[in-house]
């Protein structure tokens, strides 16, 4: 168990900067997800933690020990590869025993620990099987077991579920989280799938274009995105983001959304921040799940353009051109394509961003 600290970490490949000054504290025993679209620098970060790539600047410490120049075999890092990288020419037993054998562990001790690990991961019946023909969930368990058997302080997982079909992913997610709880190790999990990050991680580090955008618990990241990228990236569908102008009304500060109308008065605390901030051009944000139908003449009047039924929920698409809104309702919602509906969002669920910088305007 080890805390990982990334300080001013930079990685350049020639002229291309894959990672721009990243600072991140990963706590002891924490499950941290590095989340972002492809090319955001998450895998590069992970490879540097593992020692497979050397940082161009900054440093990585494990419990205060500088890892710069420490070979990857000596960092005490367990790595689960995207395709698991199982030694296909060995059977399950030899795969599990590999780390112990190369470290010169005695045969009896190796045997005892391999059997214990196999027992723990329910791999005992297939110990003698060649590993080339195993199913993917067994491969995952084997890959984790092979790393875990040498008791690494840190576990790194590189998109381990990306080769698995959607139906099976849910099963694997549960299994993985369960294993992490039992191992109690510091885990860093790289993924582009927000569902994986949301369901498994203690905290999520959202990255984009080599820049760390936000670090927080899944709910923090979901409820209070720090900027427009996170607001849009997290959530499925992402946050609704409408351009508008701040305006005073007799009921308090509101956002004028042009053709769509005027929002309900903002939360007093948020209004105060906005007033001191002095911005006028803002982006009004709210989660599709927080949209409720309002009585005629109230809230925002929006034409229904498309209705998407996804079983338990119904996604209603409103508006066209610049100002589009999605809303998620129960599946018995009585709206029809073409009609204009009045919708509202409770002030406490409304978020606001500076239109010029994209940064959230929020109470500190």
């Amino acid at each position, binding site marked *: 168990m080890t805390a990982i600290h990334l300080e001013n970490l930079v990685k350049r490949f020639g002229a291309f900067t894959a990672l721009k000054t990243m600072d991140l504290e990963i706590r002891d025993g924490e499950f941290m997800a590095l989340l972002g679209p492809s090319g955001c620098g998450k895998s590069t970060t992970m490879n540097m933690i593992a020692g497979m790539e050397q940082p161009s600047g900054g440093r990585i410490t494990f419990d205060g020990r500088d890892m710069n120049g420490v070979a990857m075999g000596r960092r005490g890092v367990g790595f689960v590869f995207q395709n698991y990288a199982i030694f296909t*020419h060995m059977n399950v037993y030899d795969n599990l025993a590999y780390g112990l054998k190369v470290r010169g562990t005695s045969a009896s001790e190796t045997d005892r620990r391999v059997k214990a690990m196999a027992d723990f991961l329910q791999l005992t019946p297939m110990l003698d099987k060649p590993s080339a023909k195993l199913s993917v969930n067994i491969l995952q368990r084997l890959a984790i077991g092979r790393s875990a058997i040498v008791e690494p302080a840190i576990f790194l997982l590189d998109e381990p579920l990306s080769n698995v079909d959607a139906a099976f992913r849910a099963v694997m997610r549960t299994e993985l989280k369960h294993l992490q709880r039992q191992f109690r190790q510091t885990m860093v999990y790289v993924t582009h799938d927000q569902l994986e990050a949301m369901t498994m991680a203690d905290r999520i580090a959202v990255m984009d274009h080599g820049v760390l955008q936000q670090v927080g618990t899944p709910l923090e990241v979901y409820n209070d995105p720090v900027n427009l990228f996170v607001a849009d990236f997290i959530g499925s569908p992402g946050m609704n983001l409408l351009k508008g102008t701040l305006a005073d009304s007799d009921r308090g500060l509101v956002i004028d959304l042009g053709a769509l109308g005027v929002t309900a008065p903002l939360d007093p605390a948020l209004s105060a921040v906005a007033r001191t901030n002095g911005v006028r051009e803002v982006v009004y944000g709210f989660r599709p799940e927080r949209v409720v139908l309002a009585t005629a003449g109230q809230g925002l009047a929006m034409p229904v353009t498309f209705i998407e039924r996804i079983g338990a929920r119904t996604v209603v698409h409103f508006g066209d051109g610049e100002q589009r809104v999605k809303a998620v309702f129960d599946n018995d919602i009585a709206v029809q394509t073409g009609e204009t509906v009045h919708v509202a969002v409770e002030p406490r669920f409304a978020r606001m961003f500076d239109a010029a910088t994209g940064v959230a305007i929020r109470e500190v």
Partner: protein
Amino acid sequence: MSMLATEEKLSVTGDRSTPETRIEDGGRRLGLMLTLPAQLLVLFIAVFPLLMQLYISLTDWSPLDGIGWWQAYELWNNFANYTDLAADSRFWDALGRTALVMAICVPAEFLLGLGLAILFMDNFVGKRLFYSVMLIPMMVVPAVAGYMFFMLFQSGGPVNDIVSTLIGRPFALAWLSSPGTALIAVMIADIWQWTPLMFLILLAGLVGVPEDQMRAATLLGASWSQRFRTIVMPKMKTIIIIALSIRVIENFKIFDTLYIMTGGGPGVATETISVYIYKVTQQDLIWGYVAAIALVILIALSILVSLAISRMNAAKEA
């Protein structure tokens, strides 16, 4: 439900006369006809000479006898060639010499090729140039290589010059005319010429070793030599067997370079099995005997290769 299933099965099996199957049968006939010329050719160039060889090897026939080979039965000798062969010490010496050359050249070529291939897994300045240079020996016509080494190993040649410079006193060993060193010179030429082939095949094998498995092994704490032994070698087993088989077969037939350098001499000091067969064929003209020797060698090599292939299949299964 079960009725339906049976019906379906019936219609599947009773399907012989549908247009599709008729086309398929016709296709098979057409395929046979299209490949027939090639099959006849193979029969003519491989099977027929083999049978002819077997036939002649049981007779005393020689082209000097003035009768066609098909009449060789007139000189039938009841396996005398084979019993002679068993007692022919020159044959056994040649065979032993061939085995010695093989036992030294093939491992040397393998180790050198492997070492070079490992070096070429890293990036270094001028890698592409060295890569091309490395493959040149393989492309030199063996007869030319023979002349090259013939000249290099002359008593006043460059090899002796270099040795003289190194040891600081005149050195004038007649490499090719001393029984002790002629075979060494021949082996050096063979190693020079065929290490590149090993290098090429083994490099292809090394490139094929999955990088993530190597990384996984490194992260588990395996040292370079441990990774080499536990990951690289097992993954390359098949390709190593192929490379060794090719070189063993080729080396067994070692002839052109050697013949130009030494002609099998001095005396019989470098007479390998191919040189021996050549001399018996061209000088002694006892073709019945030659046929017997060649057949024995063919069978011996076939056994060797099939052993290698079965090892390879075992490696693939594992």
